[in-house]
C-alpha cells in the first residue's frame, strides 16, 4: 500500500525538479513589464557613443567586458562581488552558537553558517538598437542574472535579476555616462 505511493511521490519530486517550465519560451505579461523596466531611450546620441559610454560605466562599476559585437550593438560583461548579507550571516552564526551550546553534550555539528551566502557572479547584457519608429533615437536594453555561491562553495541561488530598483540605479548612472561621453570627458 505504502510502496506505490512512495514511488509516485518520488517520481513526482524528480519530475518537478527536472521539467522544462511551459512558459520558458513564451512572452508572458510579466516579460513585457520587465522589458519596460530594462529599457531606456536616448535621443541624439550615436550607437557607438552609447556603447562606449556603457563600457566606461561598466569599468567604473568594476565589470570585465566579456563580449562586444559593435555590428549588433551587443555588449556583455561580468563581475564577482560580495553577496554576504551582514544581518543574515550574524543571525546564522548566533544560531550555530546557540545550537552548539544546546548540543554541547553530544558535540557540535552545525554548519548553517557554511550555508550562508558568500560571493555572487553577476552577468549582464546591454543591447543598443535604433528605434524602429523614431529617427535618431536609440533604445538601450539591459538584462542581468546572478549566481550566488554559499560559503561552503555550493550553489546557493541562480536567478534573473527582476528588481526594478537595480535597473533604475543602473540607468541613472548610464545617463550620466552618456552625458559625459557627449561632452567628451
Amino acid at each position, binding site marked *: 500500500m505504502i510502496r506505490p505511493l512512495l514511488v509516485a511521490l518520488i517520481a513526482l519530486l524528480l519530475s518537478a525538479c527536472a521539467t*522544462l*517550465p*511551459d512558459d520558458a519560451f513564451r512572452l508572458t505579461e510579466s516579460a513585457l513589464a520587465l522589458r519596460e523596466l530594462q529599457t531606456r531611450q536616448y535621443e541624439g546620441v550615436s550607437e557607438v557613443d552609447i556603447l562606449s559610454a556603457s563600457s566606461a560605466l561598466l569599468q567604473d562599476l568594476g565589470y570585465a567586458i566579456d563580449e562586444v559585437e559593435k555590428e549588433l550593438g551587443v555588449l556583455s560583461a561580468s563581475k564577482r562581488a560580495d553577496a554576504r548579507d551582514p544581518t543574515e550571516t550574524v543571525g546564522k552564526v548566533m544560531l550555530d552558537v546557540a545550537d552548539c551550546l544546546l548540543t554541547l553534550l553530544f558535540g557540535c555539528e552545525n554548519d548553517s553558517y557554511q550555508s550562508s551566502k558568500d560571493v555572487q557572479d553577476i552577468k549582464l547584457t546591454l543591447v543598443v538598437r535604433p528605434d524602429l519608429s523614431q529617427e535618431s533615437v536609440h533604445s538601450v536594453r539591459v538584462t542581468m542574472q546572478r549566481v550566488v555561491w554559499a560559503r561552503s562553495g555550493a550553489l546557493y541561488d541562480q536567478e534573473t535579476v527582476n528588481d526594478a530598483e537595480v535597473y533604475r540605479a543602473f540607468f541613472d548612472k548610464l545617463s550620466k555616462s552618456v552625458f559625459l561621453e557627449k561632452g567628451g570627458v
Partner: protein
Amino acid sequence: MRILFAVSLLLLAGCAAQTAAITAGGSQVELRQMQTREYDTLDRRGTLRSVVATLQDLGFVIDKADFDLATISATKLQDYEIRMTVIVREREGNRLSVRANARFNEQPIEDPQSYQDFFAALDKAMFLTLHKVD
C-alpha cells in the same frame, strides 16, 4: 577472476559511453525542421538584432554574438539553466533561415512546443523589424 572481468567490462563500458556523447544526437531531419524557420528577407543585421531582442524578452543574457558568422549564444538562469544557440544562414530564393537549438540543464530540448514558442516570439520581433514604420 570473473569479477575482475566484469569490473573491467563495466569500466570499458563507462569509457565508451563518455566518448559516445561527443557525437550523440544530431542529423535527425525532424529535429532540424522544428528548430528552423525561414523568413522572406536578406536583412541579416535586422534578423540578428531581432533574435537578440527576442532572447532578451525571454530573459536570456547574451554570451556570444558574432555578426560575420551570424551566431548568437545565450543563457537563461532561473531555478534551471537554458543554453541556446541561434544561427542565421542564407537560403535559396532570397531567404534567411534561423536555426535555434537549446539545452535545458544537461538535456537537449527536443519537444516541438518550445521551439514553436520561441519562433512565435521571434515572428513578432521580425515583423516589427521588417515592416519598419517610416
